[in-house]
């Protein structure tokens, strides 16, 4: 019986308190949302907004399939999740109204809204949740992100139409955070039943917009869902979106994307380059027509991963020498024009339980030289690089040109230059995505920089649990640093299983201290979502869960 269950459920702590504050706190210009300036702020219904993305064009719009950032970006305005997060990362209800774990933590009863329908008319209920989880876990779906996030979930039982019971193999403190991600969004079971091809073209959700058409390599057109009634907590208004149409364009080149914004061809762009952010902010300061909205993508910070499994970084002294000589702060200041702050945390500033250890990353070339001497890298060759037994101190650095923006690649060149002073031969290898993944899979690197976006500190378990040194069948191993420390594994397991927030915080703090002390990782800065917009656009905000643009509150001044 729905009522009984609902009354027995723990209503999440943050559920009622966080609402109005949610979508704020993610902006650089301090206005909360876009268009906080002099423009009149009465919403205008109707109109078209053109959004130009640099994240790339998905090959399938259903984020259950594969599961990458381009899918999540578009999906945020079409599909909705069981839960959402507030600006501090706390879980708040969305399509679910609450959730309560069993005493042993091996099942969660998730209470659902009973008044929401998918845009094809299919009601949203527990059977739909079960069908979605089954779809994500079905190998035929070819899911990568969702299936990993549901690793501890065996199945979903329909207790009654508004109660879905998640059955787990072991406790999972990150379950609700996982369910908040767009990659685990709820889609119409009738839509899923159409098969992969149809569902990839036009996934059917409960969101403020529906997919109208998709012209490959050009745009996806979204139109308003007029019966929309499931705004996330913190949305500026309830009910259907203001915009009648969104044209979602794919513009891979950052310079043309910004030029299209400047010349008024598009209204909103993402993946702005640092110099364009400065140009737009300068323009805004002098009364121009552009604004910038930024938010730190959750998960890991952008960081260098030192491959501790193989020479030369299997020696902790060599890792410490590298970190003590890799002077990144001047590069961050000059190359990023003050648009990013140096991070000393492995976790993004938007992810709870991040811990900074600035002292572990201090620059000290004398100490670096001493450490390398101690490690036996005492020789010098004709080019000034250190040698040991005739072998040069070479560190291969594969760089993904898809993931690292030009400013970042220049920063890596500066790291190459400063570490050369103490005798490191850092060899930069710019590679396309497939080649880069291949060199990672082969452990054919000394250091690399990889992005991992996840709205939970449980990302630490994915990246640094020794189990994740073992590659997935595709060859992918998230633990690039080859960190294998039983104590760290135990801490990350505890943190991942406990629902006691204090215990979780303590375990994550200790785990990050181990990573910093062992010099496995060099944090650089947050992975920033940098959205540029024309001041014609009002009410633009970022949905905190993955810091993705949310357009249901937006309108365009005519």
């Amino acid at each position: 019986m729905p009522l009984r269950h609902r009354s027995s459920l723990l209503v999440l702590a943050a559920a009622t308190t966080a609402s109005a504050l949610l979508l704020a706190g993610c902006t650089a210009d301090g206005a909360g949302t876009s268009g906080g300036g002099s423009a009149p702020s009465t919403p205008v219904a109707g109109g078209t907004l053109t959004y130009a993305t640099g994240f790339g064009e998905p090959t399938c719009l259903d984020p259950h399939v594969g599961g990458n950032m381009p899918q999540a970006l578009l999906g945020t305005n079409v599909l909705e999740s069981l839960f959402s997060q507030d600006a501090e990362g706390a879980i708040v209800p969305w399509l679910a109204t609450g959730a309560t774990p069993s005493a042993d933590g091996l099942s969660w009863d998730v209470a659902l809204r009973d008044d929401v329908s998918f845009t094809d008319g299919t009601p949203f209920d527990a059977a739909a949740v079960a069908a979605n989880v089954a779809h994500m876990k079905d190998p035929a779906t070819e899911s990568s992100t969702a299936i990993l996030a549901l690793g501890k979930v065996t199945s979903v039982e329909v207790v009654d139409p508004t109660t879905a019971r998640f059955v787990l193999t072991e406790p999972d403190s990150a379950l609700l955070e996982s369910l908040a991600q767009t990659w685990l969004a709820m889609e119409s079971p009738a839509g899923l039943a159409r098969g992969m091809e149809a569902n990839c073209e036009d996934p059917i959700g409960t969101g403020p917009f529906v997919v109208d058409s998709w012209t490959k390599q050009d745009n996806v057109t979204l139109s308003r869902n007029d019966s929309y009634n499931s705004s996330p907590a913190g949305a500026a208004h309830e009910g259907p979106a203001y915009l009648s149409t969104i044209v979602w364009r794919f513009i891979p080149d950052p310079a043309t994307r910004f030029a299209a914004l400047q010349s008024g061809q598009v209204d909103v762009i993402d993946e702005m380059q640092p110099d364009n952010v400065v140009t737009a902010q300068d323009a805004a300061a002098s009364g121009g027509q552009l604004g910038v909205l930024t938010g730190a993508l959750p998960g890991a910070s952008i960081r260098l991963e030192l491959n501790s499994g193989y020479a030369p970084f299997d020696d902790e002294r060599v890792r410490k020498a590298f970190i003590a000589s890799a002077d990144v702060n001047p590069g961050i200041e000059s190359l990023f024009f003050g648009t990013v702050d140096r991070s000393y945390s492995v976790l993004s500033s938007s992810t709870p339980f991040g811990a900074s250890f600035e002292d572990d990353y201090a620059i000290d070339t004398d100490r670096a030289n001493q450490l390398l001497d101690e490690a036996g890298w005492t020789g010098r060759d004709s080019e000034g690089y250190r040698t040991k037994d005739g072998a040069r101190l070479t560190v291969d650095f594969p760089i993904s040109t898809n993931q690292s923006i030009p400013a970042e690649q220049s920063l890596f060149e500066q790291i190459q230059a400063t570490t050369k002073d103490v005798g490191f031969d850092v060899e930069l290898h710019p590679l396309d995505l497939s080649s880069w993944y291949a060199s990672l899979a082969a452990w054919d690197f000394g250091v690399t920089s990889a992005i991992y976006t996840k709205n939970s500190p449980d990302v630490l378990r994915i990246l640094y649990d020794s189990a994740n040194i073992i590659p997935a069948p595709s060859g992918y191993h998230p633990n690039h640093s080859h960190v294998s420390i039983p104590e760290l594994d135990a801490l990350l397991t505890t943190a991942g299983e406990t629902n006691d927030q204090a215990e979780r915080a303590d375990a994550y703090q200790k785990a990050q201290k181990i990573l910093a002390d062992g010099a496995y990782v060099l944090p650089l800065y947050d992975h920033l979502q940098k959205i540029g917009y024309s001041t014609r656009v009002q009410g633009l905000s970022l949905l905190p869960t993955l810091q993705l643009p949310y357009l249901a509150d937006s309108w365009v001044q005519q």
Partner: protein
Amino acid sequence: MSGVVGARRADARGWGPLLRGLLLRLAGAVFVLWAAATLTFFGLRLIPGDPAQALLGGPGSQASAEALAQVRAENGLDQPLILQYLAQLGRLATGDLGTSYAQKNSVLSIIGSQIGGTLLLAVLALAVAWLIALGLALWATRGGRIAAAVGSGLEIVAAAVPHFWLALVLVLIFSTTLRWLPAVSTSGPAGLVLPVLTLAIPLAGFLGQVIRESVLDALAAPFTLSARARGETENGIRWRHVLRHGALPGIALSGWAFGWLISGAVVVETVFARPGLGRTLLNAVQLRDVPLVVGVVLVVALGYVLVTVLTDGASRLADPRERAA
């Protein structure tokens, strides 16, 4: 009107040699297509990267062992490379381009939906390049030493600029600053102007150089002297006599230009966010989407063969010597 010396011999040898020529040409075309498919296939499989991942959501996929084994078996990726190659060649021989790994769609239909934009771009760019090159050549050969130096300088600079740089400069001038033209493709013709200019300007530089050279040669040739002696006007000489000669190497170069334009389309379509084969190819290579890459390369190679035939035909029209051969 031609000043070419030498009698035109009637072809008395019948259809035999013509047929043989045709067959030779056909065999050449098949060889080009086979070589293109083969080089592409092995090139793509010898660089790092796993095509099975294109099938499962792209590089870095965390697909299960079962899913990987399944797609490898379904697509024959578990076979030795040489067998995969022969199987692919067999399919290609029957005209089956296969299915894209990443887009899960027939390669033929993907190419069909993208080829129009690229062809339009290439044809317009070629036309505009010819206009610029001819105009520049005629002006530079007429205006004396300074015009010749300026013309030749412009041609060298135009031929040397990289597409991506030129594209961004044009965007900066005409979109960001002047706001005359859109920075990214639009449905109307305005969106074509900058992409076409980006492709046409460097090409005009190449064409202009060879056309100007041969225009100068033709202006110094005896038939020009005799035309002048007959009282032909300077314009008449240029349009009726010299241009025909001047255009010959340009026509020959246009076959090469087609291939060059397609490679330029990769850059231009990406910078201006235009749908087309170039962008399709770039994405497919990055994902190691073997059937799609091979399909696009084959279609481009076929286009190259056809254009070469067409330029041969055009040379024959412009040059009576070739008609006799």
